[in-house]
């Protein structure tokens, strides 16, 4: 049998069907824009949403697939990656809904925006399932480079330029550090790139390897912490969030962060299983710093986008409690919280976009008295912010309680108590906005709200915004009360994934037959 058919029979290329659908959508949008011209760009973004939903359907049919390893070990489409990929695809679909009107009003090209966003999604999805070092780095770069482009998309705005440049420089530095750590792993394992093979080689840490592994661990965590914007690596977050187009911020705070957490779980559990106490210690420190700094600095913000930036840093701190807990329940609680966070955070950003499109500002003080003029927007923003704060009947409460319960079970009493205290702090600054909108008397209304334009949903591109708003509102409200299916989904995604069973005793899979011998002939 010749080379090509030998390889083709072993690829198991079906595992990347969801990604393939995203790539096809991307090409359709890009080519369709060239053929049909700018007038069709709104229809093309609906095509993109349809493609993303198709990708979700494809992900659904891959659930509990027995053959999860594809591309000779390069990609692992297990249930854990499916949940994270689903979260990312949904966040992109929501982001496109909210970006149609925004991008068109800013005068920039919509179809290119959508296609860059789809590329970022593609990178994030591959990152969730990446199973070897080359794949991890390449998908990380695909995500990062698309994010830099999106950040600088409104190119005549100096704030956007500044944000893009800062993000590019800090991002390049952090990828360089990450790459150094990864190359150390390659050297320490004697030239392996597959994660399970590396873990099999790194079992004996007594013979002088421990220093190298420690340095590799620290450098890899630096790269991951940049992506999830945990505190010592968070400096880019506020400026980038303030200067980017708001839909991009929404994607960065949910999709990009989910991909970072997926990478963290896979890399740390598989490769660094031997040094679990060490990375749990580092992540405890990151979680403590993120929760304290994120919540305390958010108190002082006057701009809504900056406040949500710091709040997303703090939320990452809460999610890290699940990572530190290190049990199956811990990872399940991360999945569960990220899924809920998707709806409530994107809902909040939809409201911020709607307000800034109608009034041209995102200052918190300008929201005062909004209740009199726009009840739907007020209701949606209030529900989403209260859910982010963790007020009981809403979804965020159940996510947080699960995280804290898991942390308490794992004996992380200090971390959980700190989480509770900082949650109370966070409720203060979320409620401040709600109070500003709801409680103010009509004569205390801000000038912006006094001049609030009449609500017209029939303008082009407003309908998708309304759909996104209502969907996220419904999801945030109901996901709390009807959280049992989500809960089961998160739990089964963890319990059925091979990552966690093989973490202690790595098995080399027998399918990837193409060994070095046959290649080096």
């Amino acid at each position, binding site marked *: 049998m010749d080379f090509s058919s030998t*390889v083709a029979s072993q690829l198991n290329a079906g595992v990347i069907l969801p990604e393939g659908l995203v790539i096809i959508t991307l090409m359709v949008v890009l080519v369709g824009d060239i053929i049909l011209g700018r007038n069709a760009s709104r229809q093309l973004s609906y095509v993109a949403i349809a493609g993303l939903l198709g990708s979700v359907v494809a992900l659904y049919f891959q659930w509990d697939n027995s053959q999860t390893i594809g591309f000779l070990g390069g990609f692992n489409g297990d249930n854990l990656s499916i949940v994270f990929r689903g979260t990312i695809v949904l966040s992109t679909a929501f982001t496109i809904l909210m970006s149609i009107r925004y991008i068109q009003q800013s*005068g920039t090209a919509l179809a290119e925006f959508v296609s*860059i966003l789809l590329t970022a999604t593609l990178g994030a999805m591959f990152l969730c399932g990446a199973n070897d070092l080359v794949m991890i780095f390449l998908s990380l770069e695909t995500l990062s*480079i698309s994010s830099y*482009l999106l950040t600088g998309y*409104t190119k005549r705005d100096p704030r956007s330029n500044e944000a893009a440049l800062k993000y590019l420089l800090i991002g390049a530095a952090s990828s360089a550090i990450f790459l150094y750590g990864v190359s150390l792993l390659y050297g320490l394992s004697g030239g392996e790139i597959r994660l399970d093979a590396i873990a099999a080689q790194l079992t004996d840490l007594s013979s002088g*390897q421990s220093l190298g592994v420690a340095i590799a661990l620290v450098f890899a965590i630096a790269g991951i912490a940049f992506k999830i914007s945990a505190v010592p690596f968070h400096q880019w977050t506020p400026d980038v969030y303030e200067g980017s187009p708001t839909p991009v911020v929404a994607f960065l705070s949910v999709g990009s962060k989910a991909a970072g957490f997926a990478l963290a779980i896979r890399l740390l559990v598989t490769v660094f299983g031997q040094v679990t106490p060490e990375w749990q210690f580092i992540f405890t420190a990151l979680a403590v710093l993120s929760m304290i700094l994120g919540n305390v600095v958010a108190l002082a913000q006057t701009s809504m986008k900056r406040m949500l930036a710091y709040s997303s840093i703090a939320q990452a701190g809460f999610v890290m409690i699940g990572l530190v807990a290190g049990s199956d329940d811990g990872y399940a609680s991360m999945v569960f919280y990220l899924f809920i966070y998707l709806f409530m955070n994107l809902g909040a950003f939809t409201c911020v976009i709607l307000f800034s*499109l109608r009034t041209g500002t995102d*200052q918190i003080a300008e929201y005062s008295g909004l209740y009199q003029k726009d009840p739907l927007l007020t209701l949606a923003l209030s529900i989403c912010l209260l859910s982010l704060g963790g007020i009981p009947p809403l979804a965020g409460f159940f996510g947080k309680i699960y995280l804290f319960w898991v942390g308490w079970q794992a004996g992380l009493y200090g971390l959980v108590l700190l989480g509770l205290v900082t949650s109370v702090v966070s409720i203060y600054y979320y409620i401040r906005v709600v109070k500003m909108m709801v409680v103010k008397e009509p004569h205390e209304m801000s000038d912006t709200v006094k001049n609030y334009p009449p609500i017209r949903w029939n303008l082009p591109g407003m309908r998708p915004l309304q759909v996104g708003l209502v969907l996220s509102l419904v999801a945030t409200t109901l996901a709390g009360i009807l959280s049992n299916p989500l809960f089961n989904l998160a739990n089964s995604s963890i319990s059925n994934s091979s990552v966690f069973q093989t973490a202690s005793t790595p098995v080399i899979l027998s399918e990837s037959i193409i060994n070095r011998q046959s*290649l080096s002939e």
Partner: protein
Amino acid sequence: MNLAEGVQIVSFGILAVMMLGAALGVVLLNQIVYSAFLLGGVFMSISGLYILLNADFVAAAQILIYVGAVNVLILFAIMLVNKKEEFKPVRNRWIRQGATALVCVGLLALLSTMVLATPWAVDTTTVNASSTIIQIGKHFFSDFLLPFELASVLLLMAMVGAIILARRDFIPERKATTTEVETALTLPERPRELSGS
């Protein structure tokens, strides 16, 4: 030690000295054009190291891409920006430089300790070096197929993004509508200093 090994060691020494010297020059020289040319020197010496490691294709690609494309692009960028600006010397500059030097030396010490302390698993099998291109091709179409294909998407999007950032845009005129905020390639949110009024 036979002659081949001696030649290898000597040429490794020469390349290493060249690379370190050029790299120091890139960082320490004040004239940015000199730095750019020395960067080309660094890339050339790295490709020499690749040849020593029997990686002929990678060495050629290194010269073609890094020296031929990246470095030339950097030089073009430097020559197109014709801006003379006198920078005022920062006060207490030595503190910053000292701190940077301290961090760098510390990092170097840590990494060299690690390199020396680790028992590296060195692969002693000799590879038949006549056909590295064929081997690279086989890897690209078997276990590196997915990264190879993903790189094509990445490059396509980098190209589209570069065109978007560089092209001359039609700037829409601000329409005086009362209902919604229209902007010309800027964010709809007003800058902070304007929004107070």
